[in-house]
């Protein structure tokens, strides 16, 4: 015995609006995304595939075809035997140089920048903003204009071409973006907390070590990710401020691949390229959101 409202329920649209999986909108949306994704993935694929082939196979086939015979020899060769100039001990030396450069540089630059940022955010003094503005301006000035005076400075200090000199350089040029990152983060921490700590008798360093630093571990993680990738990927400073036996991995890689002597071994080159990219890639995939947050925070708020 249906009454009028029962009839209404059975007829007419009900529940979610039906949506076709293959609507035109979805095809365009996902089609574009997948197409672009392929463009982005091709170089990585080519690198991997090439590095696993033998030279004869490379000469015959094309760069996109998967290896018929998988060989790890190019990797071994790139790591231990590839030549730059007269040295033939592979990329391993560059790798260890990069490690020796990156770890102290990251540590020193973050310690200094976080303290700077803290001073700027919570303990303003007269003129602080002027110096900060100069610092941020410095981030946009081409490095080329500051390179040579720094060469002189390092030479005077006796650090030119040595690793500590390069560490100093990375600390200097990492400072603007890191200081900005930390300053912006510390200003978001409620001022009441800072005031409460002062009322409780904590001083400049007490508040930094016992209140601010424990609260800011995520931003330290962001800074580490930012600096490790940045310093590992650096080429310009490495080539200017070090000598061949101290060259970081990127410089050595470029010298191996672009050396004019001998027969080009593309598979070894690609293995070397991948090896160099491996550290930042690993950091990128492990850190995930932190990486995105780091680059976005460093950039947008500026």
């Amino acid at each position, binding site marked *: 015995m249906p009454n009028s409202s029962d009839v209404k329920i059975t007829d007419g649209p009900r529940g979610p609006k039906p949506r076709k999986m293959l609507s035109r909108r979805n095809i365009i949306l996902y089609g574009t*995304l997948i197409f672009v994704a392929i463009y982005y993935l091709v170089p990585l694929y080519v690198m991997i595939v090439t590095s696993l082939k033998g030279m004869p196979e490379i000469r015959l086939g094309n760069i996109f075809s998967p290896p018929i015979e998988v060989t790890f020899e190019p990797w071994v060769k790139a790591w231990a035997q590839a030549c730059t100039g007269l040295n033939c001990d592979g990329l391993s030396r560059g790798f260890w140089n990069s490690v020796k450069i990156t770890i102290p540089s990251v540590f020193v630059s973050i310690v200094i920048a976080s303290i700077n940022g803290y001073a700027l955010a919570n303990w*303003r003094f007269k003129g602080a903003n002027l110096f900060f503005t*100069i610092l941020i301006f410095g981030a946009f000035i081409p490095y*080329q204009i500051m390179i040579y005076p720094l060469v002189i400075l390092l030479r005077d200090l006796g650090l030119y071409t040595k690793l500590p000199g390069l560490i100093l350089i990375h600390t200097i040029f990492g400072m603007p973006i890191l200081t900005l990152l930390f300053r912006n983060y510390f200003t978001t921490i409620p001022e009441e907390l800072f005031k409460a700590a002062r009322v409780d008798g904590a001083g400049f360093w007490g508040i930094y070590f016992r209140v601010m630093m424990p609260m800011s571990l995520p931003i330290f993680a962001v800074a580490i990710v930012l600096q490790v990738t940045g310093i590992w990927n650096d080429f310009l400073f490495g080539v200017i401020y070090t000598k061949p036996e101290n060259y970081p991995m990127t410089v050595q*890689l470029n010298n191996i691949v672009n050396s004019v002597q001998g027969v080009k071994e593309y598979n070894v080159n690609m293995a070397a390229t991948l090896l160099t990219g491996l550290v930042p890639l690993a950091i*990128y995939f492990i850190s995930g959101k932190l990486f995105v947050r780091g*680059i976005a925070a460093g*950039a947008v708020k500026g």
Partner: protein
Amino acid sequence: MLTKVHPERLFIGSIMLAFALLIMATVGIKPQLLQSLQFLILFVSLLLVIWIGIKAGKFDIITNRLRNRAVGWLIAATFSTALWSFAHKSTQLVFPALKEFRKIWNTFEPFALFATVVFILFALILFIVGSRDSKLERPGFIERSLVHNLSSKIAALPMVLTAVGVFVIATLWTVYHSFTNSRMLPKSEFIGLAQYERLWNSDRWYMSIENLAIYGACSLIFSLVIGFMLAALLDQKTRFENTFRTIFLYPFALSFIVTGLVWQWILNPDYGVQKIVRSLGFDSFVFNPLYNMDIVIYGILAAGLWQGTGFIMCLMLAGLRGIDQEIWKAARIDGIPMWKTYIQIVIPMMRPVFITTLVIIAAGIIKVYDLVVAQTSGGPGISSEVPAKYVYDYMFGAQNLAQGFAASTMMLVSVLIVLIPFTYLEFGRRKNA
């Protein structure tokens, strides 16, 4: 009468002046006169201190509540004296370990000496007049300017040194020396604009500028457009958003060297894209951007976009996410189609994000160096040269420093042309808000 002009300020001012002279003397504006002059000026400030003390009538050291801090300055003075003495032969004879860092001590020597003098002066002034009961017009001025927030000032010292010592002084040094005829070593002989004339008569520089203009314009437009479109596509409650974002962004984690080498390989005419298309039957297909002088810069552009667009997308996506969701709802209620909402409402709302992104891209473009070195080394010929490479080659390759300085000064000028209007806009916006 002198109280009217604040002798305390005069004191601080003279110390700063002395410091400026010291820097100039060390940086290479050599005249010995400057080095002696700073100590002359410091002597004047010592007289000032004593005069201030007499005027204030406060020589009572024992009751001065600031004497603890004055002691701190004395301790600091002791340290800088020690540092100063490290540079001297007799000290190094006693402690042979010091000899190893001889160069560092030598660099710091004048600064340490200066610091010693200044610290002692500060200690004196705190002993003598640092009390708030001073009869001077602005009691406590020196106390405030020196001691207030001292930890913060010390903590910010690296920043101040970097900002002034590197970013300002190094820049000015380079600009100054671009007017000299420095070749192997920097000289201070002034030759006017000759280096710039040479620069603008050089084909290689013209090629660099032209390449930079093409690369810059294209990468600006493409990375903004593509970056925004990708961000908009990902903002449609898209499934697998994280996967797509991870894919688009991973090249940004790679260095320009790696990027350049991969694309060098992909664009290799004997093995790469050209060969594949030819093997499909198009025998006359030609695609070898890296070996064609006319289009080599586009080959570099393809690699640059591959590396950087994901980053732009991320900035845009953050901007899109920052837009009030209720704006979207309001637009839907108002019956405005999505594309129109983007163009007429969302993009204008994202103006600050676009401006910031623009500046970031622009600053990145001018620095382009590694990519070119890795992908083409500037070739074929000079057809893919860029200014940053020109600078490097002249400074470290051709041993023609001043030419490199002139080129880098031109780079600085072009950055300032972008940056100054931006800061102006930015500050204008902040004032309005």
